[in-house]
């Protein structure tokens, strides 16, 4: 099953490699990983998307908790949560296709953030499957490049992951 593990950790050099190293050393898979400092600059928040049986996920969370730099973590998949991913797509958009791309982007509530006479860069956020659907809707030959942040998320309601 897919799990989204949100980790609050010390914002220190090497912290990211400890997490990445743990996954590779113990043979766990990482589907995506995103990290940035929080409003408290001494802390980073990392979101790891991974797959595994309940036993494997239990070990992953325990092993992550064991890392000295990890302050707290939650498995978002255990409760109701919201998740979003950011994507930038550069698309060949010339002549007749120009209008089609724009209307597709509108349908998906994308934003065109760069325009040349032959291309668009579209910014889009949403759950990962929505971004997948948009890329699929575009003519394969027209896609120049795709960059995605990987999902991040938080639990719904008043409670949150903080100190």
């Amino acid at each position, binding site marked *: 099953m897919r799990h989204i593990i949100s980790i609050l*950790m*010390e914002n220190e*050099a*090497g912290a990211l*490699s*400890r997490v990445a*190293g743990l996954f590779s*050393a113990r043979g766990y898979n990482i589907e995506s990983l995103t990290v940035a400092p929080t409003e408290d600059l001494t802390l980073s928040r990392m979101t790891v998307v991974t797959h595994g049986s309940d*036993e494997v996920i*239990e*070990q992953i969370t*325990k*092993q992550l*908790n*064991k890392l*000295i*730099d*990890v*302050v707290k973590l939650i498995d978002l998949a255990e409760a109701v949560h919201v998740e979003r991913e950011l994507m930038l797509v550069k698309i060949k958009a010339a002549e007749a296709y120009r209008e089609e791309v724009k209307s597709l982007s509108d349908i998906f509530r994308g934003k065109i953030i760069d325009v040349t006479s032959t291309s668009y860069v579209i910014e889009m956020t949403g759950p990962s499957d929505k971004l997948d659907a948009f890329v699929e809707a575009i003519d394969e030959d027209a896609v120049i490049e795709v960059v995605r942040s990987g999902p991040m998320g938080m639990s719904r309601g008043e409670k949150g992951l903080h*100190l």
Partner: protein
Amino acid sequence: MELSGGEIVVQSLKDEGVEFLFGYPGGAVLHLYDAIFHQEEVKHILVRHEQAAVHSADAYARSTGKPGVVLVTSGPGATNAVTGIATAHLDSIPMVIISGQVGTPVIGSDAFQEVDMVGITRPCVKHNFLVKNLADLAVTMKKAFHVATTGRPGPVVVDIPKDITAPNIKIPYDYPKEISMRSYNPVVKGHSGQIKKAVDLLLKAKRPMIYAGGGVILGDGSEELTAFSKLLNYPVTNTLMGLGGFPATDKQFVGMLGMHGTYEANMGMHESDVIIAVGARFDDRVTGVLEKFCPYAKIVHIDIDPSSISKTVKVDVPIVGEVTTVLKEMIDLIKSSDIKVDQTALESWWNQINKWRDVNCLEYDRNSKLIKPQYVIEQLYEVTKGDAFVTSDVGQHQMFASQYYHFDKPRRWINSGGLGTMGFGLPAAIGVKLAHPGSDVACVTGEASIQMCIQELATATQYRTPVKVINLNNQYMGMVRQWQEFSYESRYSQSYMETIPDFVKLAEAYGHVGMRIDKPEDVRPALEEAFAMKDRLVFMDIMTDRTENVYPMIEAGKAHNEMKLRVAPGTPINRDLA
């Protein structure tokens, strides 16, 4: 007090009460060595190879419970230390390893003797630090000792660039007495609801087993374990790392379990209905094939590390906490509980165990004209009155030592259980002897293992550590040879050494006493003679039966009840087979 970085490191070691610093100098740590030169409180032990520095400090820690401390230089000094660090990591030994690093301005430029020590050691330490600012040095040292010695212990590396230790830059020294880290709060007390559940389960058991590991030794819980076991009168088995955690000569002790465990311990585990694992981690050498592990048992597991619980074997009642605290609470609960142990069931369980004991699985040919390694260990046990510190290397001799030397006290059996590091024994013996100069220290080794850190005979000369080296010389890498015999139709691929040195001359060359023993009747007198030489290192090269194997054995893919025995149960030993 204003101190330079080098002085801060040394002063912090003094503040931590460090007695010995095991190390080897080099370019990146010269400032540190200069600071060491100016004091006498922390005694530096100069080894002959950095791997040995870590093993010596590790064994010092295992035998005393205090953290072992190491100092090595950057680059090759640091990489040489890695095997020792990984050894300590897998056995959860509290250590602080200080490594020199090239100066901060040149880090990352492939400078002379530069290696990313923090990167290299990341997977084999409890934690590591790179000190980039002098102002962080003292607090980092404090954190290193704190992390290494609390919770589940382990090695911590502090990598210090050369410029941080420069003598001309001084800052006020303020070593914190206490430290708290928001990201690190090891659990102490177990969950009382879980403890109650565990006690109820234990008291209702009909075929109980107490399975105790190295956590009992590390957590200084052998008194509590013994009291707990005595109260219940349940059979106790120890893991390789747990030997000495419960007195081996006690009638409740059924021996070691696992791959080379006793028949009674393994059969007991297999048939048990309730197992309590205390500070043990269900290692693959203990469990055998997981699918067939303890099929009838409900399992209680006490461990300080949550990640040890249900890692390989799913347990029914997990308790995260210190062994001592949890066992004490259990003892109180047992005493006040309304549930009484079913004594009839327990009696018939003991009868069954005693039948397994009667198989006498550790019996060997005592009439052989060749020296049997088992006999040597039995004699060592008698000559040292069971009270020596015994270090070992890795292989057959290690198993013989664990099976035939009966450890009644914790911290007496010093071996590399998790990583299985050949070369551990001799430097370990030196570390133990420094910590316990008045005690007998024996290093049980083999002619293959001993050569992996043989250079430490020089360290032993320099610091006058009169340990006794018991070299069980079968002219094979015995354990490799045994596996090749069982699983590769005796194709002894590279397990035989054609050129074995004259160990007697070698010992003498280093200034020690060498002895060669090749007759069974000479073993006892030679051991007595060696241990009577209180102030000399004696290297005993004992020529043993080349074909001897370690039994019982659970082969790969087999379960506890599928042991390979020397002789089938009930069959008397054929004395003519030599």
